[in-house]
């Protein structure tokens, strides 16, 4: 039974406590009083007949006090609102406050209604704005309950607000409203809040009821209460707060409609059921262009959908969807016309959007994210040189653009720190300190590793020759290797930091690590998944100290066949923490010290393993990687591509080996629970453009299987152009979907394969310090070897479902972290070129599209596009008598376009060789503005 465990626990708790049900008002009224000497609770003695049944009075499941509540996962709870009789009481952070004390306080309290809390929480919180008057709020129980029922996220914020010791917020516990005859629940709630305000006025002498409902205000004024809308309230207490008010425009309804109205939910449902409509998530490519699945949508057909919204679309005929000028553009570019066009007919769910950006001269807010349209924001002072956060509140059919309200100011535009904050905020990367609860789970810094290892009877490997190989300056060392050789068999030990010894399942620390999902690496800083005590000290397998490890022992023969695998929890002492460069020197030398010999053995075996893997069809993929040198102020002074040694490949090879071994162990032992990683085989048609470009360069690439792709990529070399092979690999990599975590139960057979590594099963085991997936895998593996039982959460009935969700979450967090680090690289690239513009720089063309060349600067790993007036012809961009094709060499000039009010700094490339057409500009268009025009309205 997949009933949610928490729901059951609640019921069982209710059942276990006898008073809970004997007290219940549903208990029958005429129950016989317990006869003396009879054991309670079996006190009911039948008075007549062999048996009878009684029904309690008033015990309907849907009476006024009981109601149903659902959770996302489908649990339907019966909740009973306790009738709160007697006098209303005030509390402050849980402690009762006497009315006399409030009378003496002589202060004006503000009583917000539920809608004010739900929509204007930014005002009530008034972060970084000093406003003593709004620190005095009274939150009625009715309000809190309504907020809780309507928006959990908002409710959590409200709770945090109420508990904030810096404020003087009261909660009012008062009688639940009972609707009068012919009065709706809403009206009853409003009345209860007005009564509460009257009570506050009586107790404190003064009170302001904050409500955005004009009717409610009118009724309050009849009752001689002071009632203000949020805007009026802000004007009264702190005018600067009025910037943060979320505005509902009702007055625009009568004016001209820019967009077709959205259809009512029933029609959407019918349409989807009948197949005339399609539902899906709208993915925008620019402000007014995007797609839902394979249906592309443009201009006013987007009908107010924002990126990430769940929408319902209707397919439309080509002619209907395009106007003439757009037609021309499409024919020119020769864009793929096979995809069908559509228009949005309804929005099912808006993604909550808080966006970073800045104000334009025109006063509109321009999000950094180019996929979002400009936003209409009311603010008195709009400084165009500040980064601000804006929340998008809604989009009326009468308005060309969505409206939002100001949330926070982040700092000066173009400033490194400000822009980094923007990146973290937009990608939802947690950058704050760890919670006190999480820090409380940490062991003391002088944790005695040896004593702990003895207590838990770990295998003692401190005498073995073990070393770690990492980039220079690496502090979170999560893997170390050892290797001995005897009788033709390599005995490899892959030792991974034993993070789960310190991170107990379901502890506050575990919860925090889970919500972070992964460490995020930015150019100028690292955001850890775990507190630094663990990442840099207790878990880090540093040299010459005892450390706890989870080891995989793999015996491999000289042909690379795995003979045996074994796992154990161990205690190790690494002999040396080598850098790749140091390890490479050991590989190249004949040094016969313990570590040197071990590294050379590892290297020899890695070559065998690699050949074996490549023979099986593993791909050597590539993506441009950049490394910045930073000065003391974290300003980039130099940029270079990442240098790779053979030693890098050695470490990689053994990590793959450990991961593959662990994956097959887990899949066998926990077929429903194992957390694995898959890489879907890309459909062949995804390669078609790439294959065509490669063939124009004279290479025939066969992408039918990973093996044929790997072989043909290996063969595609040009002695006069060594860079070209890497370029081909980069382009091939971009044809593939990213790898993803999944729960073993959710995919079967071939779907579980890792295409790029040509492994039937793969997982992540080797970096538990910086990836949460590895932490989960460690726990499962510990249970698989009977070292430690499965944590309760993994043994629950719906564990597989939970794990599937966790996998989805981890995928999302990993993508966000990756995007954040890419954007950080882009930011630093910009800072670098702002200081050092270049007149001549070699570049390679990566893609050709609508009058643009996408160029990679291999020296820097930087990518940007150049606008060139040309026509797409024969797989290249042609102008005058030149044709530039994909993978061609070009020479460009690099500079940074300075920001003004309406545009941000941007790296701009200008074509030097071949000479651009005379009419061609050189800048990258800052953004395409495809705002629809009112006259082109369609219904």
């Amino acid at each position, binding site marked *: 039974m997949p009933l949610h465990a928490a729901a059951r626990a609640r019921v069982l708790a209710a059942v276990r406590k006898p008073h809970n049900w004997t007290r219940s008002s549903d208990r029958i009224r005429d129950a016989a009083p317990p006869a003396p000497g009879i054991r309670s609770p079996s006190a009911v003695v039948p008075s007549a007949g062999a048996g009878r*049944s009684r029904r309690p009075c008033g015990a309907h499941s849907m009476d006024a006090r009981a109601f149903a509540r659902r959770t996302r996962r489908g649990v339907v709870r019966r909740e009973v609102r306790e009738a709160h009789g007697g006098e209303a009481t005030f509390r402050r952070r849980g402690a009762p406050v006497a009315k006399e004390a409030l009378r003496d306080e002589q202060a004006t309290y503000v009583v917000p209604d539920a809608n004010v809390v739900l929509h204007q929480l930014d005002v009530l919180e008034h972060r970084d704005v000093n406003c003593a008057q709004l620190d005095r709020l009274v939150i009625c129980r009715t309000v809190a309950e309504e907020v809780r029922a309507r928006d959990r996220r908002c409710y959590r914020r409200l709770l945090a607000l109420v508990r904030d010791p810096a404020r003087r917020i009261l909660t009012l516990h008062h009688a639940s409203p009972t609707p009068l005859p012919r009065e709706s629940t809403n009206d009853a709630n409003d009345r209860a809040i007005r009564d509460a305000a009257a009570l506050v006025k009586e107790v404190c002498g003064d009170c302001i009821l904050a409500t955005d409902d004009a009717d409610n205000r009118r009724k309050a004024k009849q009752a001689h209460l002071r009632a203000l809308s949020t805007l009026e309230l802000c004007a009264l207490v702190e005018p600067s707060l009025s910037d943060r008010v979320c505005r509902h425009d009702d007055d625009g309804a009568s004016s001209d409609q820019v967009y077709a109205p959205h259809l009512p939910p029933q029609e959407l449902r019918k349409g989807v*059921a009948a197949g005339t409509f399609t539902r899906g998530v709208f993915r925008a490519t620019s402000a007014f262009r995007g797609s839902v699945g394979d249906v592309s949508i443009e201009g006013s057909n987007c009908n107010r959908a924002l990126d990430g919204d769940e929408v319902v679309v209707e397919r439309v005929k080509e002619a209907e969807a395009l106007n003439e000028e757009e037609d021309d553009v499409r024919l020119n570019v020769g864009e793929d016309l096979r995809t069908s066009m559509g228009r949005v007919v309804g929005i099912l769910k808006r993604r909550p959007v808080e966006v970073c950006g800045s104000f334009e001269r025109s006063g509109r807010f321009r999000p950094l994210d180019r996929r979002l349209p400009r936003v209409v924001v009311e603010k008195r002072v709009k400084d165009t040189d500040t980064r601000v956060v804006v929340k998008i509140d809604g989009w009326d059919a009468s308005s060309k653009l969505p409206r939002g309200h100001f949330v926070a100011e982040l700092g000066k535009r173009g400033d490194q720190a400000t822009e980094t904050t923007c990146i973290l905020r937009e990608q939802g990367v947690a950058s704050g300190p760890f919670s006190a609860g999480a820090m409380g789970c940490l062991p003391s810094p002088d944790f005695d590793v040896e004593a702990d290892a003895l207590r838990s009877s770990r295998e003692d490997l401190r005498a073995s020759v073990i070393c770690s190989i990492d980039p220079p300056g690496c502090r979170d060392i999560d893997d170390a290797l050892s290797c001995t050789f005897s009788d033709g068999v390599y005995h490899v030990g892959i030792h991974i930091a034993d993070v789960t010894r310190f991170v107990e399942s379901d502890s506050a620390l575990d919860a925090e690590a889970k919500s972070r999902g992964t460490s995020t690496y930015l150019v100028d800083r690292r955001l850890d998944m775990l507190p630094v005590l663990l990442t840099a000290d207790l878990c880090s397998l540093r040299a010459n100290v005892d450390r706890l490890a989870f080891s995989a022992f793999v015996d491999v023969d000289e042909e690379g066949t795995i003979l045996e695998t074994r796992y154990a929890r161990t205690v190790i002492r690494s002999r040396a923490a080598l850098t790749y460069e140091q390890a490479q020197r050991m590989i190249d030398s004949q040094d016969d010290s313990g570590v040197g010999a071990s590294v050379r053995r590892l290297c020899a075996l890695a070559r065998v393993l690699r050949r074996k893997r490549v023979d099986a069809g593993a791909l050597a993929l590539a993506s441009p990687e950049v490394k910045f040198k930073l000065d003391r102020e974290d300003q980039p002074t130099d940029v270079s591509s990442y240098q790779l040694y053979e030693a890098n490949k050695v470490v990689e090879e053994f990590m793959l080996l450990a991961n593959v071994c662990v994956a097959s162990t887990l899949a066998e032992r926990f077929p429903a629970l194992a957390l694995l990683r898959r890489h879907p085989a890309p459909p062949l048609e995804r390669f078609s453009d790439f294959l065509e470009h490669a063939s124009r360069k004279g290479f025939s690439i066969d992408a039918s299987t990973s093996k044929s792709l790997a072989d043909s990529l290996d063969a595609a070399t040009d002695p006069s152009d060594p860079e070209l092979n890497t370029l081909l690999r980069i382009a091939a990599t971009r044809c593939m979907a990213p790898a993803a975590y999944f729960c073993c139960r959710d995919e079967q057979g071939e779907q579980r394969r890792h295409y790029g590594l040509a492994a039937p099963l793969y997982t992540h085991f080797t970096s538990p310090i910086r990836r949460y997936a590895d932490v989960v895998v460690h726990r499962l593996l510990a249970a698989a070897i009977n070292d430690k039982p499965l944590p309760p959460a993994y043994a629950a009935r719906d564990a597989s479902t939970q794990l599937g969700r966790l996998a989805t979450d981890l995928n999302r967090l990993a993508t966000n972290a990756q995007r954040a680090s890419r954007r950080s690289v882009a930011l630093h690239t910009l800072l670098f070129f702002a200081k050092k513009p270049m007149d001549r720089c070699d570049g390679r063309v990566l893609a050709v599209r609508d009058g643009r060349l996408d160029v990679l600067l291999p020296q820097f790993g930087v990518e940007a596009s150049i606008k060139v007036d040309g026509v797409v012809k024969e797989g290249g961009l042609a102008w005058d008598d030149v044709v530039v094709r994909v993978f061609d060499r070009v020479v460009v000039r690099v500079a940074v376009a300075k920001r003004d009010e309406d545009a941000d700094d941007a790296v701009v490339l200008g074509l030097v060789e071949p000479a651009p057409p005379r009419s061609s500009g050189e800048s990258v268009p800052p953004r395409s503005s495809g705002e629809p025009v009112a006259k082109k309205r369609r219904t």
Partner: protein
Amino acid sequence: MRSDGRQPLEAREFDIETNILVQCWGSARCVVGGGLGGGTECLAAVTAQIGEGTACGVEVECSPSLWAAGDDRAKLALQERLAREADAWLTPWRAAIPKIGEKLGWHLVIDCIILSDDGGLREALSCAIRAALASTKLPAAEEALEASDETTEALPFSLLPAETPPTTLSVDECPVVVTLAVVGGTLLADTTADEPADAMVAVAVAAGGAVVGVDVLCGAVPPALLREAVAAAPALAAPLLGASSLAPAPR
């Protein structure tokens, strides 16, 4: 004549009370016996979830106060056994679990607690379950085209307003169980914990006196006595069936 003065095929008095737990959609308590012996008392509570298809599971827990510490294994074994038996009793009834739209339906869990045991455990347990199901009023729900998040998919259904009449369950197919003990070649109905028994047989009887299952709980029962037990069961079950199948109270 038995120690408490009953005839061989005379059952003890019993009492059923419904809707005793406010946090559940349906609940019942059944006491068999009572009086000085304390009787046998069971509690059943119905919690619900909406998911794909329909389902119903039973969980049985013995009150910790009755099974002293140290006797954990016996308690666990009994819990498991009763849960398995109760699960089997409900098999024919499962078809009556309401669906919601095409794909979705109710997933019910019946949580049972045995508060005291003085014989007739299966009578008390089956009556409590049947009465709890009969008293269940699930909130009305309908399949909905609802927004679902990308990350954690919410199930597409919506609960209808409180004014909508609730969904009730038919318990016709849900049986009550009567147990008969074989003592020296005769059958005794509804034995107490003090009465000795050579063998025990449980007979499940659904609405209308239809015998839907026979289970020899312990010992060996001669075929003739087994036939006799099956013949006697409908009469014994009739009052239990009547008392535990009351239609929900009118609103």
